[in-house]
């Protein structure tokens, strides 16, 4: 099966984005595929490379990057949602790309499953 995952939860202020990461990891572990991971609403904060938690804490931005690299997937975020929240090219983490909502709709139409983490 082929999944599209939409993440609307911010990186630190709620558990939702981390749940999405755990889910995505297990999708791959079961040999399914992910059409797209898309960050919208406060979810765009997941792509801010300036995020620097203490070393003994979870760094979700890095976890997303490692996942994207390992499975060669793109992490998309909506340009309008990102600009309003101060995530722009200058602080965009590697592995993420700033795109538009059209990408999300295409992915939804192309995949077998659509799941939201908020």
């Amino acid at each position, binding site marked *: 099966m*082929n999944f599209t995952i939409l993440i609307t939860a911010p990186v630190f202020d709620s558990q939702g984005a981390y749940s999405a990461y755990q889910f995505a990891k297990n999708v791959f572990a079961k040999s399914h595929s992910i059409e797209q991971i898309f960050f*919208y*609403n406060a979810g765009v904060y997941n792509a801010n490379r300036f995020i620097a938690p203490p070393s003994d804490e979870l760094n979700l931005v890095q976890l997303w990057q490692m996942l994207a690299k390992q499975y060669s997937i793109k992490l998309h975020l909506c340009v*309008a*949602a990102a600009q*309003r929240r101060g995530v722009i090219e200058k602080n965009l983490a590697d592995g993420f790309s700033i795109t*538009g*909502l*059209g990408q*999300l*709709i*295409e992915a*939804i*139409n*192309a*995949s077998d499953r*659509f799941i*939201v983490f908020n």
Partner: protein
Amino acid sequence: MENLPKSMLFVLRQGPHQTPQAREAFDILLMASSFANKISLLFLSDGLFQLIKQQDTTLLAIQNFTSAYKALTLYDINNVYVAKDDLLARGLTEADLILATTLLDDIEISALIAQHDIILNY
């Protein structure tokens, strides 16, 4: 994969001004409609407050996003549903709403949800 447009139901359950949720959901909806996806809107709970007439944000000096709903028909989006029980619970009637909607009871809403491929709950 055929990439057929899917039917999408937007379930809106929050008031209009405290968070940008409804407004950002609207942007998804517009984009989806340009991809020929069939769109429906369902207002539940505090989502009904988005549709109240006479919202005047000039004193707050912010934009009133909800006036955009009046343009829904321009985008050929005519399936707008409202939970009858939630309207009553808030002391509102159809005459209080900025656009024509279809009132549904909970059983009808259950059937509506079951008819869609994709459900986005904001």
